[in-house]
């Protein structure tokens, strides 16, 4: 460490006294000496020990530090920050509804409130301890006293500064001698160490500060200027993938499509579906009026049909098939005027409709009714029709259809 400035008049000659340093072997001796110095009314003095000596605060008359209050303030700030942060981000700035939970409710926000309270409090404790203690404190006249190195090892020291108004070299030395130290030593002011930072460090700090502004400047420039070049991906993300997507142009094929059509006349395995009656409800182009021979009409099929009808058709057509399902009722309630009501399936017209045509209606939909072919297997579609026929029969029933015994119960 070099001192660059010119020696001035006051710098020449032996350096002035910084203070008197006394060394002790045990904490007990230090305590005794401290009480004496305290009672003598000194104010600019201190003791040094390798560990906190029990009772030294009282012996020196050290007042309680304000540190705990600072930490309390910081902790409360952390708490408030957590509350505001969570409320503002999740309930106010971007109201975010998650599984119907309330936007703002204390219990779910407690963990982070707690964590930030501790975080702010803890970090502040440390920083406030340093600041109140004047740390970092790079250089001190005591650093040039050889014996003082043991202050962090096994010895106990007491320093009375010459700057103290009560300080008088001979009197103070006599006071210290009376406490039986191992040694007393005058500590000269430090003339060797400059107060200034070495120029190299200053320059590098300046350079680093200026350089660190560059990325921010670039970011700011990018925000306020336009560019035609594409975004730079430092790490390729999923939004850029080296592949052709369906429905996109593709130069590889002559027709320019990415999605390839199947070759004409090809049939996927298990998809031949030659039986027109069963798969399409047709016979030589005309709607069939009978159930396909491969479909077994029995009670099991009827029950299956009832169940499937309940699942797929009742929302619109209602349990009785009269076109009064929940969806239809809701639409009536809304009365928006754009609603096409589901047909009444027990109608004369539908009753006379060939089963093949109904099959086609379910499979491909009709006008405003969507197609259910992709959702309901063909055999189930036939089962539904079977049940539908039974429903219709029930609606169009005459008294003559009943057994005599049943008629009497009416």
């Amino acid at each position: 460490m070099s001192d660059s400035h010119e020696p001035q008049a006051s710098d020449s000659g032996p350096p002035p006294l910084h203070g008197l340093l006394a060394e002790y072997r045990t904490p007990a001796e230090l305590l005794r000496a401290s009480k004496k110095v305290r009672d003598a009314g000194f104010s600019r003095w201190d003791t040094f020990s390798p560990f906190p000596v029990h009772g030294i605060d009282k012996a020196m008359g050290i007042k309680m530090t304000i540190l705990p209050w600072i930490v309390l303030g910081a902790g409360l700030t952390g708490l408030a920050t957590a509350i505001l942060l969570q409320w503002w981000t999740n309930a106010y700035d971007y109201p975010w509804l998650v599984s119907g939970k309330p936007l703002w409710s204390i219990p779910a926000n407690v963990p982070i409130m707690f964590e930030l309270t501790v975080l702010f409090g803890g970090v502040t404790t440390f920083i406030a301890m340093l600041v109140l203690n004047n740390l970092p404190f790079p250089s001190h006249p005591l650093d040039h006293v050889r014996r003082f190195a043991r202050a962090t090892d096994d010895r106990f020291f007491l320093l009375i500064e010459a700057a103290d108004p009560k300080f008088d070299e001979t009197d103070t030395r006599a006071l210290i001698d009376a406490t039986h130290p191992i040694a007393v030593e005058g500590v000269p002011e430090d003339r060797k160490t400059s107060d200034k930072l070495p120029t190299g460090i200053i320059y590098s700090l300046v350079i680093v500060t200026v350089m660190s502004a560059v990325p921010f400047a670039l970011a700011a420039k990018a925000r306020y200027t336009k560019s035609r070049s594409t975004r730079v991906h430092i790490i390729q993300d999923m939004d850029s993938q080296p592949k052709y997507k369906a429905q996109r142009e593709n130069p590889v094929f002559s027709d320019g499509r990415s999605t390839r059509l199947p070759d004409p006349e090809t049939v996927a395995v298990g998809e031949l579906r030659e039986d027109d009656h069963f798969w399409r409800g047709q016979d030589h182009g005309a709607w069939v009026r009978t159930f396909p021979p491969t479909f077994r009409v029995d009670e099991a099929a009827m029950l299956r049909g009832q169940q499937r009808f309940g699942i797929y058709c009742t929302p619109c057509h209602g349990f009785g098939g009269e076109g009064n399902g929940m969806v239809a009722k809701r639409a009536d309630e809304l009365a928006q005027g754009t609603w096409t009501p589901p047909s009444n399936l027990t109608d004369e017209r539908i009753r006379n409709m060939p089963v093949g045509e109904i099959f086609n209606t379910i499979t491909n939909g009709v006008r405003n009714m969507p197609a259910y072919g992709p959702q309901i297997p063909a055999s189930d579609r036939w089962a539904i029709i079977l049940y539908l026929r039974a429903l219709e029969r029930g609606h169009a029933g005459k008294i003559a259809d009943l057994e005599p015994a049943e008629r009497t119960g009416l």
Partner: protein
Amino acid sequence: MAAISDVNPFVNAPAGDSAFARITDNVSRIAEVERPPRAWYIAFACALAILSIFLGSIGWVVWNGIGVWGTTMPAAWAFPIVNFVFWIGIGHAGTLISAILFLFRQTWRTAINRFAEAMTIFAVMCAGVFPGIHIGRPWLPYYMLPIPNQMDMWPQFRSPLEWDIFAVSTYATISIVFWYMGMIPDFATFRDRATTFWRRLCYGVVAMGWRGSSRQWHRYERAYLILAALATPLVLSVHSVVSFDFATSQLPGWHTTIFPPYFVAGAIFGGFGMVVMLAVPARQFFGLKRIIQIKHLEVMNKVLIATSLLVGYSYMMEFFVAWYSGNKYEAFTFVNRAFGQYAWSYWTMIACNVLFPQLHWFKAVRTNPVATLIIGMFINVGMWFERFVIICTSLTRDFLPSSWGYFIPTKIDFMTLGGSFGLFFTLFLLFCRYLPMVAMAEVKAFHPSAHAHEPDHHVEHAGQAPVGI
């Protein structure tokens, strides 16, 4: 390069004409010796080799995506989260020792607190790696932080995973602050003993000009007390929050209210297991037997029995509640845990966590360093399996039998798990070499001769003096 000494330079009695000086020398010489013992070099070489496996496997995972692990549906958490919870759990002992035992005035803690704190920090670092790479795109973890961004979206603060981010990062920060603040006076000791310019400069910078002034000690002690008071609930909260990741989900085997206390007990258990595992070789190789004494090992082993019983109780309670709740999914999960496809891991866990530690009821066992070391290892294995059992048995047997499965780890899984120990031990060995391994100032403060000023107190303190130098 000078030959590595064959003899352990630390076997001699420490130099010094007073107890304080001997404590200083006993600890400082470890960082001052020019050539550490050969064992250190061997250990460091192994640790570096394992660390390179770790980095290699992480590189592989990042390059290829996390499909190179066995982690896949239904076991979507698998090894990475098992490892995360394992390491974060280990990280609990350090702060427990430095904060909670401090508040309880357990003076014996001074012998072990410093390296337990170091262990905490390194364990939290290992833990932090896993969620980072498990998210699959490790360049996007900032999504989890409340940073204003171009999507105008904020993290979801009602999610336990988000709480986790805050809990773990707060814990890491406070642990580092606590650790560093504790080391300042010891750095000053190193600085004042330094014989070379560079040592003086480096330790001088980190000591920040600490000179042991009593006025500074006054604020320092207050600050330490406050940090301990803040860190105490923090220790308990971190693993509670980690357990919320599980407990707030609906999965049978995870959805239980016992999780927070059960996880905290397990974390302390596993953490102490790791502390004894490190303490035994450390005192052996670095000549710290005068400071870390058999009686300290014994106290820690007693903590291990207590926490082992707590953990065992939790295992039992889980079964009891599964039965008592009358919930068939819950009951199935626990029967499956003990007798299902992962029964082998369940019984490994029971043996390591509940049965072996009971050996410490015998004084001969708990005062024997080798036995302590071995049982400590078993505990670590057991605690790893505890997390494995919780995560894998529950995930692979959830509500829908159609989505059941079996988790099979890959080579890379084992490399990342094993490799994380490389990171841990590399950092730990560097710590042993360059930083004050024992809190000298604290050990001195509790030495009988520090209290000689009040003769009536002397006897009482000498009885529980932590260090017999």
